[in-house]
């Protein structure tokens, strides 16, 4: 049973199909890069897998259970466009909050540990609204990884990250893959995503135009995939 199984997912907004018959699976230790132009449906699909939206038809199972299941949500980590952190709380308070929401056995220790791993332990009591962009992003990464999720869903994570944050994220993602976790990352930044990816999926107007392993050609020539399967 694969950690992420998407079967026959359709999503309608009124009469308009944003996603049409999407089916794919992600194995443990695999990283799937979700590619596609703006409006192709990448964010919609990720939100459905994350349990933030419900599909009109079809289903998603994460770690063997329906993704909106309470138990399953422990296994999912998300990193979206916003950092999902509270400006008025400190770095430590934010991580501690999420550690408690996720039911970690030792929330304080987990929070401190991740502050150290992301190099933010010196500013643990600083309010997030006073942080620089890079610090906010590193804290967001800490929040996503805090509860050791088996499945990571990242929506355009490399956009607007500074070098330090990108390096940190790539290290964490590689470690996660080595540890048998699964990742789905949607992106425009083909280079960074394709380096990490073991598989790719191309969305064109809500349909899955291609899924398969990430080949060397795709890595060398960023536009290869679009030319062969997408639209010019």
């Amino acid at each position, binding site marked *: 049973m694969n950690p992420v199984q998407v079967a026959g997912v359709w999503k*309608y*907004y*009124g*009469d*308009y199909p944003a996603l049409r018959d999407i089916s794919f699976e992600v194995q443990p230790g695999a990283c799937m890069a979700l590619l596609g132009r703006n*409006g192709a449906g990448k964010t919609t699909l990720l939100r459905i897998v994350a349990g933030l939206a419900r599909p*009109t038809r079809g289903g998603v199972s994460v770690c063997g259970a329906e993704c909106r299941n309470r138990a399953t949500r422990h296994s999912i980590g998300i990193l979206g466009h916003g950092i999902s952190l509270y400006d008025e709380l400190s770095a430590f308070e934010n991580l501690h909050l999420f550690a408690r929401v996720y039911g970690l056995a030792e929330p304080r220790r987990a929070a401190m540990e991740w502050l150290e791993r992301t190099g933010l332990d010196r500013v643990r009591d600083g309010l997030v609204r006073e942080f620089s962009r890079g610090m906010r992003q590193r804290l967001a990464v800490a929040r996503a990884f805090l509860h050791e999720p088996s499945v990571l869903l990242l929506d355009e994570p490399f956009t607007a990250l500074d070098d330090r944050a990108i390096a940190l994220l790539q290290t964490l993602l590689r470690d996660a893959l080595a540890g048998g976790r699964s990742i789905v990352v949607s992106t425009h930044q083909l280079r960074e995503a394709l380096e990490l990816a073991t598989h790719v999926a191309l969305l064109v*107007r809500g349909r899955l135009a291609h899924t398969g392993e990430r080949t060397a050609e795709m890595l060398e020539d960023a536009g290869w995939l679009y030319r062969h399967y997408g639209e010019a």
Partner: protein
Amino acid sequence: MRPKIMLAMTGIAALLLARNLYVILQVLPDEEHQNAAYRIMFFHVPDAWTAFLCFLAGMIASVLYLAKNDLRYDGFAASITEVGLAFGAANLVTGMIWGRVIWGVWWAWDVRLTTMLVGCLIYAGYLMLRRAVEEPGERAKMSAVVSIFAFADVPIIFFSIRWWQHQQHPEPAKLPPEWWAALFMNWIPLLLLAGVLLMLRMEQERIQRQVDGLRRTIHAF
């Protein structure tokens, strides 16, 4: 087929209304206490019954939408709530006219009228909410929740205002039994009218759904 049904219903309603108006205006005697104005009751009371039925149906359709996720239930709920609001407004206006003639005041905080007023305010809020939401699925979901809250509130509103009034005015007059036949006779054409309006409105909703879908498809590409 449907336009023929609607035309038939309108025709029957018109005939019944004509017959009822004749009975109400010519045949029934003047009421001892209240002079000729009591005749407006034969529209005022069935208006309230119709509005109430519409709101109840709207709530049931809302629950069904949440259970089944079919936008047609939402179209029905929205249409019938609008029709209900129209009859509620008619109830308020006829009530105010009657009050002006009988008591000399346009508004007297009578239990039933006040309950209808608050109800109409809630459902007006429902319609405003629908205007404010673009996406059909979200709109349907939010309206369904408001409709459930609204209808759950209606009996509570009625009891609370009744207790409030009890402390200030005596019990409102009960309807004399000899009126019941005429009231029901007049209710039928009003129900037919409600049915016609509902079908008109639902057709509009259906076409709007199609237009929305087409518009999104065009804008996406």
